[in-house]
C-alpha cells in the first residue's frame, strides 16, 4: 500500500529506521510516529466499532483516534509521539 502523506518541506533530515506491523520502514528525525507510518501506509489501525480503518483525525491529542501499540506493550498516541530509532510498532496489538 502506498503512503497517504506527501512531504512538502524539511526533507533534509536524517533517516530514522523503525518497524511497523513487522515491516522495516524509515521515517525522518523530527517525525511523529503518525507522520512516519502514514508516509508508507494509508492508515494506522482498524476501527473497533466499524469496518473502516483509521488514520488519526485531530493531530493534537484530543480525539484519541491514533492509538497504536508498541511491541513491548504500552500503547501510544501516534500524533503526539516523536519517532525514535528502533521503535517496533503494531497497528492493532491491543486485540491480542
Amino acid at each position: 500500500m502506498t503512503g497517504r502523506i506527501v512531504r512538502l518541506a524539511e526533507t533534509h533530515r536524517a533517516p530514522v529506521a523503525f518497524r511497523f506491523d513487522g515491516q522495516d520502514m524509515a521515517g525522518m528525525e523530527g517525525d511523529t510516529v503518525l507522520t512516519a507510518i502514514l508516509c508508507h501506509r494509508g492508515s494506522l489501525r482498524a476501527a473497533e466499532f466499524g469496518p473502516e480503518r483509521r488514520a488519526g483525525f485531530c493531530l493534537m491529542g484530543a480525539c484519541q483516534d491514533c492509538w497504536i501499540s508498541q511491541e513491548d506493550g504500552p500503547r501510544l498516541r501516534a500524533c503526539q509521539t516523536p519517532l525514535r530509532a528502533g521503535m517496533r510498532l503494531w497497528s492493532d496489538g491491543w486485540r491480542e
Partner: protein
Amino acid sequence: MTRILIVGAGPGGIRAAEALVRAGLRPVVVDEGARAGGQIYRRPPHGFLRDARALYGSEAHKAEALHACFDRMVAQGRLDYLPGCAVHSLRDGLAHLTGRAPIAYDRLILATGATDRLMPVPGWQSAGVFSLGAMQIALKAQGVALGQRIVLAGSGPLLTLLASQLVKAGAGLAAVLDTSRMGDQLRGGVGMALARPLVTLRGARMRLGLPYHAGVVLDAIDAGAVRWRDARGHAQVTECDAVGLGWHLRAETQLADLAGAQFDWSEVWQQWLPRIDDLGRAGPGLYLAGDGVRILGADGAELAGRRAAAACLHDLGLEAPVPDLRRTERFAAALARAFPWPAVDVPDSTVVCRCEGITAGELRATVDRTGPEANRVKSLARIGMGRCQGRYCQLAAVDLIACHAGTSRASVGRLRGQPPVRPVTVADLLAAESSAVGTKPEDSAAASSLSAASASPLAAPCLQATPRMPCSPSAPKT
C-alpha cells in the same frame, strides 16, 4: 507565596504568565505541547529549517514575540514550566497531571484553547478524513500534506487560510467547499471590516485563485470522493484522497467544568460557554482566557490572557492594567455570524460518534425512549462517552436531539465534563491515589514512587484499550 497554576502555553497562557511574572509572582505553567506556542503558533521540532515567515505568514512577528517572551521567562527561571504533560483532573486544589505527581494550587488560570468544531458528514469516519486543524498542524509542525488531492470543507476563517497555506506549500488542493452562504458572509463581513478592516481584507484576498465554492451542502464522503451540492442545488462530485473538515472552533471547556465554572448556551457562538465576569473570572480563584472561553482568535487570546492575570492580581490586592477586548469581541462575533454553524441534518445511517460508531438513527431512537436531555441520551446511547469524550460529537448530538424532539438546544442541555479529561495510565492514577491518602505531592518519596511506577508494566495505558471498561475516561461516576 500564592501558588498560581496556568494550564496551556498558547497565546493566552503565555501572556497571563508574563503579566504574573511582571508582578513578581512565579506561576507554574503546564502545557500539553512539547514546545510553548499553542496550536496557532505551534513550533516544529528542533532541526526543522523553515523560518517564522514560512510557518506563520503575516503573523510571524506575533509568533516570534510570543515564543521569545516565554523562552526568556524560562531561561531566567521566572516560572516553573512543565511541557508535554496534561492536566487530567482537578479536585480540592490539586491538579492531577499525566506522567507526574499532582500539583497543589491556590489560583487557577485556564487557557486550554479550542479544537475544531465538527459536524458529522456521512462517511466522515473513514481513514483520510481529518479536521482542518489537523491539516494545518501537519503542514506547520511536520512539513507534510495529509493527501495528494485534498478537499477542504466546512466553514470559518481556517478554511480559506489553510487552503492558501496548502497551495503555497505546494500541496494538491481539489476544492474548498464552504457551507456558509455568500449572503451571510457579506453581512457578517461588514461587521468584521468595521472592527478590523485590514484583517478582514487579508482574509477576503486569500480566496483569490482558490477552487472556492460558497453555500455548499455536503452529502457524503465515499470511495475517494466528496459528494456535494452547489449553491444552486446541482449535484457535484470531487475526487480526492483526503478531506479536511471543520466549522470554526469549539472551546475546550472540560477543565473549566471540573473547576466549577457555570455554563450558558451561546446563540452567538452556537455552543455552551463558561460564564465569566468582565475580567474572565469564572469562580473563586478561577480565571479563564483564550479560545477556551470565547473564540476570539490568537490576538484576542493574548489580550484575554493579560486580562485573566489582571483579575488574579487584583484579587491578590495587586495593581495590573486591564486590556480592552471590545474591538476583538465585535470582530469575533461578526465572524461567527459570517460563518454560521449550519443545522445538523443527516440520515439515520450517518455515524455521529466517530469513537464508537454510534449513528444518528441510534441517537434518535434513544431520544424516543429517554426524552431530549443530553446526559440521559449519553448514558443510554453512549454518545459522548467514547475516547474523545464528546469533543467531536456533542454539539452535533445536541442539534440532532433538539431537532428530533422539536425543542431548543439550550433545553437539551450540556454534557457534563468527567475526569479524567485525557487518557491516563495506571501510574498516573497511583500517583493521584498516594496524594489522596495524605502524602504531600511534592514529597520526594511520592516522586520516586511515581518514577518507579512509570518504569514498571503498570505504566501501560489501560483506560483507552477497551472503551466499554468501567474505568473508561467518561464512564459515569459510581
